[in-house]
């Protein structure tokens, strides 16, 4: 398959990937961490940070309409700097947040299985997806979207939780909100891996349909991240600070669990799929960064995966170390690097394409897939 086509996705697929990228690691351990730092105001931290992230996803959308960050006509030194920085941030997120996924699988799904086994199984799948490229990741996400939707509907229908809204009060804008946002910064800013896609409008592009999907994606993100946070606080109150894995624990409180025992399968399956896609996105981003230096090589995704594997298993090794690293100074570097690169790329795109537009050289953005792929390389 033409490599240019490999990372070319439709807008609906972008929305779905952005949704998965943003919420996957915000619905597990982060809820506990935020409650421990901001108490009942944790949901405000989540709302603010998610809002920033949604805006940044829109900014990324504006960039990749003109092509992926690696295909933009950036000056070579700048491209190298971006590639190195993004490789580092993708790898850091893959290792630190991936540890959460591996810990979840090894302790919750299994009974203390060794990290090396879980990591190997997970990384193998992610490596294959990263190797196949953005389009395959997007299609995988599309296929499994229905599993996620079913899981969500299942828990809405069978939910049995006593929500005590008094746990959310008082509504105050205290410094704890900012402290929590600062301490757990690395869990936010999950949009830089989307820079490696290029967008094209589907052949039967429909403006109204796109608006509907955009609204659904934004509402879904807010509902899953902020909504879950609110439910978590209503159920557990301040004791949420000692309750890990919000997604699993909230969804395990359903009518079926009271009748026939724990019914976690839909939750487990949907989250593991989301985790796999998220990690694949990060490995894919790392591979694309390496591609800037080494060109199109099959082993780039293998190298990225091996590096992530060894860092996760032998460098981090447990959730405690992962937490210490994630809350260290490293978080500023990761978050700010992603933020600065996206802003810098936006500025570049605005300047470059404004001047090109005047000369009427460039084709309009987001044209149907095949036409777009044939012109992007020349851009």
């Amino acid at each position: 398959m033409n490599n240019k086509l490999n990372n070319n996705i439709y807008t609906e697929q972008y929305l779905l990937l952005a949704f998965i990228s943003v919420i996957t690691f915000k619905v597990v351990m982060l809820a506990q961490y935020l409650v421990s730092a901001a108490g009942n105001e944790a949901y405000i931290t989540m709302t603010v940070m998610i809002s920033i992230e949604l805006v940044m996803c829109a900014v990324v959308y504006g960039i990749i309409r003109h092509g992926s960050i690696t295909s933009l006509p950036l000056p070579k030194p700048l491209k190298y700097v971006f590639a190195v920085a993004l490789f580092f941030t993708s790898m850091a997120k893959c290792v630190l947040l991936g540890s959460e996924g591996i810990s979840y699988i090894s302790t919750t799904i299994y009974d203390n299985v060794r990290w090396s086994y879980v990591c190997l199984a997970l990384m193998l799948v992610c490596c294959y997806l990263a190797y196949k490229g953005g389009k395959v990741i997007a299609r995988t996400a599309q296929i499994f979207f229905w599993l996620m939707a079913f899981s969500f509907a299942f828990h809405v229908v069978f939910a049995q939780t006593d929500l005590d809204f008094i746990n959310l009060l008082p509504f105050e804008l205290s410094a704890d909100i900012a402290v929590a946002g600062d301490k757990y910064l690395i869990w936010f800013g999950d949009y830089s891996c989307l820079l490696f896609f290029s967008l094209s409008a589907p052949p039967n592009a429909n403006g109204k349909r796109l608006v509907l999907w955009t609204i659904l994606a934004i509402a879904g993100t807010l509902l899953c991240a902020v909504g879950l946070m609110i439910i978590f606080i209503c159920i557990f109150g301040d004791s949420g600070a000692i309750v890990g894995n919000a997604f699993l624990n909230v969804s395990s409180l359903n009518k079926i669990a009271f009748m026939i025992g724990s019914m976690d399968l839909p939750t487990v399956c949907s989250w593991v799929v989301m985790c796999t896609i998220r990690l694949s996105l990060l490995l894919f981003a790392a591979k694309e960064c390496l591609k800037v230096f080494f060109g199109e090589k099959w082993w780039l995704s293998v190298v990225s995966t091996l590096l992530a594997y060894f860092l996760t298993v032998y460098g981090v090794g447990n959730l405690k170390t992962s937490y210490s690293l994630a809350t260290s100074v490293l978080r500023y570097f990761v978050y700010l690097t992603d933020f600065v690169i996206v802003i810098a790329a936006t500025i570049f795109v605005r300047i470059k394409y404004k001047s090109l537009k005047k000369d009427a050289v460039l084709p309009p953005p987001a044209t149907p897939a095949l036409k777009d792929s044939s012109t992007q390389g020349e851009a």
Partner: protein
Amino acid sequence: MKKHSFVNKKWIVILVIIALLVTFDLLDDQKSISTRAIVLAMSLDKGEDKRYELGIQLLKTDKTNKQEYINFFEEGDSVSDILEKMNYNVGATISLAHTMVIIVSQDILTDDRDAALRHFLENQVVTYNTMLVTCENKPKEVLSGKLTNGIGSGYYLGQVLRTVATDFGVVPVSIKDYFMLRYRVGECAYMPLINLIEEGESKYIDITKMYVTDGQNSAVLDEESTKGLSLVVSTLTNGSLDYSFGEITGEADIVQSGANISINDTTATIKITVSLRDTSLVPDSINEQACLNDINSTLKAYIEKCYISCKDKNLDVYSLGQYCYAFKNPLASQSGYLNDINLNVVIKSDLK
């Protein structure tokens, strides 16, 4: 020339992935369900030497469908130590994920700073809807008691507590509810107080009282106070109430109830709304309002009795401190704030 689909690279990769996953799954030391001891109920106590005493109840079945409840007890310095010892003694991996109830001693609730219970919650070894009860007897006695109906007392408790959640009486409390309450202002939590009673050859469990504690102080609520508590903290759909008017007596069923708590300066108002259905033969001459007044005064007395019996021990059973905090009332930051709060109970009921 078109390649045969089976030698396609895609299939080779998929086969390699499947082979690796299966191989690593086989290599790992996963316990099959037949080598696991599924725990139905647990007891937790502290001995005189301050060591923990943990008990587990298992159900053993055989091909003849004969069920036998087996109990194991072990002592240790920490819960994790005991569980490790039990794994060895029982000869199977102890699985607490299906534990329905934990019977804890009153010492554990007032003298342990929740150390043992936190182990269960933080390490997610039990599910969050595992019920907590305390007992007047020793937890070990309750767990090992076999009821007249042949059912293990721990298993029976777990079943019963799930059916009385909306009843006018004891309020079932899960481990997550317990910690949610303990992390509130006032740190006051409650749970059913059970009693294993032996009368001649019959053996049964009495579940009519509640136990309230803030980790140090504690109070026992009698049957009436327990009903008062259930009215305030639960949404009831079951239970009955006696009423009298002159020489007429009757009984009404609770159809639906709800509670609302508000704090204004130093007055805490608890508003209870109850819908009742008369189950007795009602003469035409009955004064419905007078009957309702009797019901209202009974309910009010229950709620006030519960509040006063807890307030005497400085226990904030209705989480009024949390309401003060939620509505930014300065009382929340004062120690002994219960002494400054006046309780006003308003009952609104209708009888059909």
